[in-house]
């Protein structure tokens, strides 16, 4: 029924074809960029695994640190224990404070008070970790011997905004109908937070904490001035400098002994595996708690 002047054609003219080409190009470059992220991660994992895997053994994980140029094989047990204690202490400090900050921002703060505190948390998140290291040195180490507490405080500062952010996000997912229901029963705001809101958000808070742990375990700069001159054996006392993975990787990689370089790679592999596994666990947890909240 098309008239002669208005013959219907669905085949595009030149302009339409050009738009199609541009669209394809944009899509392709975005896809390539996305692949690049996976590629970079893959290369890093592969490079570290290739150089570090050979050195890994049970003895390496359980032995004390070797003397330099001694030829003994040695191990990294003191580093694992030290890093564990440092991160554990940091978590103990950052978790309650971070959750309370998030509770304040989401449940109590008026918009006017909220904005500057939110900004402070975000800025803290972007704070270069070497500055945290220097700050902790000036505050807690200068004039004293190096000690694990100072290192833990440094790591806690790294973890704090991460935990706060993660907690805020899950608190926002808790339906406001639950809060209303609790308040309408005569419960105070704090009781409502404690009994209704936080339990619903628990999964997300745990996830955020695990992610923060993964991040803090890999931090070097906050520990560099606080706990970098340590002995070769396991130290359980945070009152003294604590051996730890990241600083030791740095020390070994700067060493003149080629054997130390191998140890650095192997330690890096251990650290990498820990961080990857904890991150994956955290994300699985998060997906589960999201599903539960959105039901």
């Amino acid at each position, binding site marked *: 029924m098309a008239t002669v002047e208005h013959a219907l054609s669905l085949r595009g003219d030149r302009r339409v074809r050009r738009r199609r080409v541009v669209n394809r190009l944009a899509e392709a470059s975005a896809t390539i960029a996305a692949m690049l992220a996976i590629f970079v991660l893959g290369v890093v994992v592969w490079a570290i695994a290739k150089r570090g895997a050979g050195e890994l053994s049970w003895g390496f994980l359980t032995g004390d640190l070797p003397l330099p140029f001694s030829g003994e094989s040695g191990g990294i047990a003191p580093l694992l224990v030290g890093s564990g204690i440092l991160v554990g202490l940091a978590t103990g400090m950052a978790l309650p404070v971070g959750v309370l900050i998030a509770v304040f921002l989401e449940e109590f703060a008026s918009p006017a008070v909220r904005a500057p505190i939110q900004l402070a948390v975000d800025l803290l998140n972007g704070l270069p970790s070497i500055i945290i290291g220097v700050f902790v040195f000036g505050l807690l180490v200068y004039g004293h011997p190096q000690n694990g507490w100072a290192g833990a405080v440094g790591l806690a500062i790294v973890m704090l905004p991460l935990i706060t952010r993660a907690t805020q996000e899950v608190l926002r997912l808790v339906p406001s*109908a*639950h809060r209303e*229901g609790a308040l*309408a029963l*005569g419960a*105070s705001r704090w*009781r409502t937070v404690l009994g*209704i809101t936080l339990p619903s958000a628990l999964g997300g808070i745990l996830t955020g904490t695990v992610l923060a742990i993964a991040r803090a375990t890999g931090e070097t700069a906050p520990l560099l001035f606080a706990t970098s001159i340590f002995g070769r054996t396991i130290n359980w006392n945070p009152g003294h400098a604590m051996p730890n993975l990241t600083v030791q990787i740095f020390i070994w990689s700067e060493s003149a002994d080629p054997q130390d370089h191998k140890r650095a790679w192997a330690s890096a592999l251990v650290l990498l595996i820990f961080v990857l596994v904890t991150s994956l666990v955290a994300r699985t947890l998060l997906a589960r708690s999201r599903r*539960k909240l959105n039901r």
Partner: protein
Amino acid sequence: MSEMVTMPTMRPVDVAARRDAESQTTRETVFDIQGLQASYGSNVAVKGVDLEIYQNLITAVIGPSGCGKSTFIRCLNRMNDEVPSFRHEGKILYHGIDLYGDGVEPVEVRRRIGMVFQKANPFPKSIYDNVAWAPRVLGLKKNLDERVEKALQGAALWDEVKDRLKRSALGLSGGQQQRLCIARAIAVEPEVLLLDEPASALDPIATQRIEELMHGLKEEYTIVIVTHNMQQAARVADRTAFFSIDSDESGRYGVLVEYDETPKIFTAPSDKRTEDYVTGRFG
């Protein structure tokens, strides 16, 4: 809308006629609302409301969407305090005490004046813990099991859930969840129950159960129910307040048009706007 058109010829009249004609003069006044104006920011939601609510009666609040009936009922237990921009003028006296007076704790107000919301909002806990949570928090820990059972019986839910008290409340049907919310509210032994469109998300059978329940509950509680369903108001309420929308140069706001015994509102309203609404010509 067809239900509204057929309204005048059907049940409300019969139901209303059956009701014992109780005179409000013998009843104690629970709420005495004087010149209430409520606004959010610069938006006035309701204006100039004068109203008395009597003990052990069911008072329905009806009216078109946006007439401020939810705002009004939320003033009665200070739930609007949670909205930062909320302002009010006028007075709400609860047994003669100004609800918004100095030193009045919203927490204390809400314990005495319970509320059930439009959408059932059980906590993500077990059925038992949903009911027991508030008594625990408020320090009513003695004989908690009995209290929970009594509340669930009061909400006509006990027989359905007594064998699965430890299961999640989220597994209940919509109607059961809403009755659980009623049980949760009465577990702290309030004097007043505010119901904000409690059946609007429920099917007719669940709605009927809630309505039957209300008839029983009014023996012990004073009930205020907001509903957009006029038949529901006609079926359950002793007295009915009709809100409508007015406007002037400052904008649109809700007003109380008429407040009387339910049969009178539905059969012989004194205001033209009420008549138009209950006969389905408006709304």
